[in-house]
């Protein structure tokens, strides 16, 4: 089955999330082998995902926050006799 570029682009996110399988995956990969424009668009979507992931990664829990949260949970431990 031939895939139109518009249909291929719509499946990029699912493809990048490793959630495309079976015939739809084969059809998309077949289209990508023949369509340079879609390959470039897919690469852009992959890079955009990478940028968002990287920008969201930096997240350490501040010591004060952790202390307060652990204090709350310590009360639970006491209540359980642990």
């Amino acid at each position, binding site marked *: 089955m031939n895939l139109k570029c518009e249909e291929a*682009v*719509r499946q990029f*996110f*699912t493809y990048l*999330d*490793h*959630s495309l399988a079976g015939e739809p995956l084969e059809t998309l990969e077949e289209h990508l082998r023949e369509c340079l424009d879609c390959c470039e*668009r897919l690469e*852009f*979507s992959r*890079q*955009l*995902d990478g*940028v*968002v*992931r990287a*920008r*969201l*990664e*930096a*997240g350490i*829990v*501040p010591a004060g*926050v*952790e202390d*307060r*949260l*652990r*204090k*709350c*949970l310590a*009360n*639970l*431990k*006491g*209540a*359980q*006799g*642990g």
Partner: protein
Amino acid sequence: MGVEQNLRQQSSLKASQLAGSPGTPDLHSSSRCSSFEELTVPHLHAVYRLAVRLTGSAVTAEDLTQETYLKALQAFPSLREPSRVRAWLFQILSRLVTDRHRSGNHEVPIEELTDLERFSLYDRIAEEDPFPYSDRLHQDFLSQFEDDDVQRALQSVPEVYRTPLVLLYTEELSYRELADVLGCPVGTVMSRLYRGRKVLERALWDCAKRRGWVKEWKP
């Protein structure tokens, strides 16, 4: 009553349940196998970080994390599969976030879905060509964004789309796991992720306009 005080009271009330009351059949696998603390504390950082990503506020995130653990304690006897405690905590947190947005009317209005789905950041960059001397136009465009730009763009995505997106990006959950956490079919997860990414693309384009990287911006 503060969340912490409430949490203390709840912990006292539930202590007997967690230990299993004598004479009462213990139907709860979670209380049989492990304590509430043993199961949930290892996920404290993950819950807090997710709350920060979902709300964009450290103060709100701390409050939501406490609320999540309070709700988790209340519902602990109903946890049938201790192995999925992390997803279970995320589920509680995402419901709390949804409830807050509903009651606080924080939903961001979005344009008609047809217009949204037609939007292509790739095409906009190519049309505007903000870096005419670049050999890697799209890559250079993306590299301009700083942490705050992305976080702000993400906060402009309606909560219904933002939660699956953040879970996908930060926790690497599969569509099946996302459906489990969000309590919706996999097909709904797919459409929310698609629309969420489109809203995010649009928000990043708006950011580029505000920052003066493209000409379209008219204050």
